[in-house]
Each structure stands twice: as structure tokens, then as C-alpha cells.
């Protein structure tokens, strides 16, 4: 019989986060005895390119499809083609506004970022000026994490003012951006960085300026983990990307086996800092 094959289409592939998802998907594929490919566009803006990837994947007549939609609406018609061809679909990372996917292995960016806001707020005594550096102004992940952070602060911490929100899509640009923010706001007490690249930039900027303010990151990666461990960053949030990858492949395998799936599977997120990052539960979801 023909080998079971699932194309997994992510929002990107070169970022650490997506590489970790890929890792999870690959290990689950091995476990389930299926083959996968893992693809994604260059940036989270290239929605049409992702649609082309999706179309090429459907052309291969796969047995299942994992899809992390860059836009919750725009790609529904393309997914419809897959559904019409009888291909089971599992959405991941963020959902689509449609009931085509059998399930969504999701992670709540808003809630995760809110946890970061809580951590930051507590560390600065729930008052003072803070700023945020977001990795992307328009993507679902970027918007979710930004708004989760800002909304939580606005709701729960009236004495904290957000003096600046800027955007930087790589570690170097994040470094320069954060240094400029520190320059402009000498009274700043804390900064939130919304992905691994931004968090590396945060760590480098704090080191270079010798600033002692509170930094909170997102995702994982060696630089960030080292900085958290060394106390240079207060802490960070991680979303268990490996778990997401496993969930996608496992769900597809279950669907083929005829199991019914819940509409969403929350893979969760975790706040980690120097105190808990070596606990087995946290260490398992961190990656280098």
C-alpha cells in the first residue's frame, strides 16, 4: 500500500519556533509511521505564497494536511479545495474561520502574552513606564501577542503606562530598536519582547547598555534561556511548539483511524523564569 503522507504547512520555517514545531511533527510522524514534509513561506506576510504552497500540497494527493493559516479568512477557499478532495485537515497555531479543519492544535497567543504582562508588572511593582518590541505588526501572532500584552496591562495595572510599542523583525533590528527606546525613555522600568528574535535583541541591548530594567521575552532558544538563567531577563513565555507539531500529526493519524477529535486542542503555554526553568515540566517544552 501507498505510504501515508501529510504535508504540514506552517507560517514560516526558518524561525526557531517553526523549527521546533517541525521537530515535534517529525517525531510524531516517526511514531505513527507516516511521512511528512514541512514547508512555509519566507515571511508571515506572504499569504498568497502560502496559498500556492497549499495548492501544490493538494496536488500531491496527500492523506492528510496540517495547516497554520496566515489569515483566518483569506485561505478558506483554498482549504475548501482540499476538503472537496476528501483530505482531512488539521489546523494549528491559529485557526481558520471555518469548520473545515477537524481540529485545531492551538495556542492562545493573547493569553500567553497576558501572562508575560503579569510577570513584568509584578517585577516592577505594578507601576511605572514600560514598552514593547513586537516582531511583526500585521501577522496574527504579532497582533495576538501585542494585544494580549497591552490589554492585560490596561485591564489590570492602571498605574503602568505603556510609553512605546515598536516593531523589529530580526534580532539585530530589535537590538537597535530597544536601545533607541531606552535612550528616549530614561525612566523605563520594563520591556516586553514578543518572539525569540526580539528577545535576543532585548538581551543584547540590556547587556550593551548595562541597563538593569526588567525584560520579559517570548519563546525559547539558548540566548534567551541563558539570559533568564543569568537574571539578565526576568523571564519568558513558551508555547510548547514541539507539542503543537506532535498534536498535528497525531490528530491526523487519529482522524485516519476514524477517531473523532475535539474542535480544539490547546497545547498550552508556560511562564518560565530562573526559578522554574529547570523543572522537568518546563524543561521539556524549552528548546535551544
Amino acid at each position, binding site marked *: 500500500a501507498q505510504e501515508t503522507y501529510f504535508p504540514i504547512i506552517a507560517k514560516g520555517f526558518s524561525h526557531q519556533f517553526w523549527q521546533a514545531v517541525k521537530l515535534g511533527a517529525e517525531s510524531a510522524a516517526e511514531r505513527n509511521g507516516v511521512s511528512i*514534509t*514541512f514547508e512555509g513561506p519566507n515571511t508571515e*506576510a506572504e499569504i*498568497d505564497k502560502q*496559498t*500556492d504552497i497549499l495548492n501544490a500540497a493538494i496536488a*500531491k494527493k496527500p492523506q492528510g494536511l496540517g495547516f497554520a493559516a496566515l489569515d483566518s479568512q*483569506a485561505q478558506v*477557499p483554498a482549504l475548501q479545495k482540499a476538503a472537496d478532495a476528501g483530505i482531512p485537515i488539521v489546523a494549528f497555531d491559529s485557526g481558520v474561520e471555518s469548520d473545515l479543519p477537524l481540529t485545531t492544535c492551538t495556542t492562545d497567543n493573547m493569553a500567553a502574552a497576558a501572562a508575560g504582562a503579569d510577570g513584568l508588572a509584578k517585577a516592577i511593582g505594578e507601576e511605572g513606564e514600560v514598552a514593547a518590541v513586537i516582531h511583526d505588526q500585521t501577522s496574527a501572532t504579532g497582533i495576538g501577542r501585542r494585544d494580549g500584552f497591552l490589554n492585560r496591562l490596561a485591564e489590570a495595572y492602571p498605574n503602568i503606562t505603556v510609553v512605546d510599542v515598536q516593531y523589529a523583525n530580526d534580532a539585530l533590528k530589535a537590538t537597535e530598536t530597544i536601545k533607541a527606546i531606552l535612550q528616549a525613555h530614561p525612566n523605563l522600568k520594563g520591556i516586553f519582547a514578543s518572539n525569540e528574535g526580539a528577545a535576543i535583541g532585548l538581551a543584547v541591548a540590556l547587556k550593551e547598555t548595562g541597563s538593569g530594567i526588567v525584560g520579559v521575552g517570548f519563546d525559547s532558544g539558548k540566548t534567551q534561556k541563558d539570559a533568564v538563567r543569568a537574571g539578565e531577563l526576568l523571564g519568558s513565555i513558551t508555547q510548547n511548539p514541539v507539542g503543537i507539531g506532535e498534536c498535528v500529526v497525531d490528530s491526523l493519524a487519529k482522524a485516519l483511524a476514524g477517531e473523532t477529535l475535539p474542535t480544539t486542542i490547546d497545547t498550552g503555554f508556560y511562564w518560565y523564569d530562573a526559578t522554574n526553568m529547570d523543572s522537568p515540566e518546563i524543561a521539556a517544552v524549552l528548546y535551544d
Partner: protein
Amino acid sequence: MTETTLAPAAPEKTGFLTVATLQKAVAFVVLILLLGFFSLFAPNFAQWSNMVNIMQATAVNGVLGVAVTFVIISAGIDLSVGTMMTLTAVIAGLILTNAGLPLPFGVVGAMLFGGFMGAISGACIAKLKIPPFIATLGMMQIARGLALVFSGAKPIYFNDTPSYYYISSGSVITRLIPGLEVPNGVLVMFGVAIAAAVILNRSILGRYIFALGSNEEAARLSGVNVDMWKIVTYGLSGLICGVGGLLISSRLNSAQPALGLGYELDAIAAAVIGGTSLSGGRGTILGTIIGAFIMSVLTNGLRVMGVQEEWKIVITGIIIIAAVYVDTVLRKKA
């Protein structure tokens, strides 16, 4: 005095699909080679549904390639085609969704706005003597920023204008010939290409574009209004980007304000692979369309083969170089 030797007249190069043009468009050979290769080695590649995928994936890049071909033949460059496409898509969104006007307003508005912004690039180049690379690099940023400003950095959906989706993704052809499912977007691309080829080869604008690209100073000293024609050329490029904006936003049923960066390099690559000379004065629309097809066949084929993403990037780089090499060699032989 002795007679001038008159060898048999060479065929004149004018039409879109004359033998001479086809001979020139040797990129075609590369395209056939790629199609052949993938048909053999990529399972499920050679199916009509996948050909439709490829055509659809070519539409936007093909249209942007046509836009930039005009400019490149005039010895300029347009780095703003990608973000200009995005900006015009956002304008269409503003007109149709935010202002709620009927479809034709959106279509015409997006194109005119593209033409207007292109003309501004052209004016910077012609009047302020800014090098095209810089003027359009600046415009690339301006268009990108304005797309975010106008859209509030959020996608604008066209849900209120259901017919919008048909610009790109419906299929007039299927209605005429059931079973032959060619999306409208592809027809639009071919339509733009034919119109562009006619303009380039038959109109006075096209003639001036070639003259500008070959020797601008000689054209100026012949009394040609060089400045005006430059502005018109960039304006035309912007207008065609407007068509690109309509295509992509119709396909995604939304104007995505962050999209577009990097598309300019693909468009330029399509033109150059198709034999347009970056030093100006030489190029064909047919070549550009073939160039765009080469790029999407390559991308699609590698995807269908399931090549690892990072290797896909490496191979794409190699094939772009190889395609132009084959083109150079064949051109010399021709």
C-alpha cells in the same frame, strides 16, 4: 557611386507572437526543459489541476513582471512594484469595503492610484534627477508605509463585494467550455501581457521607451520630451501594479497590507530571465511572461517533489542563474 548592397530584408520585429519574437524568447526552451524534468521526476506534477495551480501562481508575478519590463527597457528600474501592488489593493479595499462603492470604482480607482504613484516616482527621476533605483526604493517604502497607514495595519476584507472574488478566482472559461478550468486571474495576466506587447511594439510610447533605454541623450537632442515620457513610463508601471493589486487581493479576498516586500525581485528576475536587458533598450513582454512561468514552475515542481525547504532555496538560486545562462548561450547561437 556604387550601389548600396541590400541583402534580403530581415523580418521585422513588431508583433507579440511573430516568429522573430519567439526566436528571441529562447527562455522558452528553459521552460520546456523544466516542465519535462518535473513531469518525469515529480509524481502528480503533470496533471491539469497542477497546471492550473502553476498558472494561478504565475498571474501576480507575471503582471508585476510586465510592469517592470517597461521600466527596465527604458533603462530604469522599479523596486516599488511589490509594495505598490499592496497599496493599490488597500485602495481598492477602501473604495469597496470602507466607502462601499460599486465594483468598477474599486477597479478603476486602484489602477489610477497606482498610475498616480508611479508617475510620482517618474517625476522624481525625470525632474529631480534621482537615480531610478533610489527613487523607486524610496517609493517602495512610501507605498509600504501608506498601505499600513490606510488600512490601519489590518487586512481589509471584500466580503461586502462578493463579485470581487471572481476577478481572480472565478473562471469565465469554464462557463464557456465546461471542464476547462482556467481561473480569470490567468486570463487577466494574458490580457495585460497582450495589451502591453501592443503598447510596447506598436505605440509611440513603446517606441520612446526603447529610445530612452538605448540612448536617452540622443533622444533628448532629437527633440523628444524625455521627461514626460519617463513619467508616463513609470505611471504605466504603477497602473499595471494596480492590476496586480486587484489580482492578489481578489485571490485572497482581502487586501493584506504587509505583503509585497520582496516581490519586486521576483518580478525583475522574471523580466531578466525572459531576456530583458537591465541596461535598457532590449526586452519583450512574451519573454517576461515566460520568465514568470519558469519561476513558478520551478517553485511548484520543487514543492511537489517535496524537496526540503532550505535546499529548495539553494536550487532556486542555481536555476535562476542557469536559466539566464542557457538564454545567453542560445541567444548567441541564434
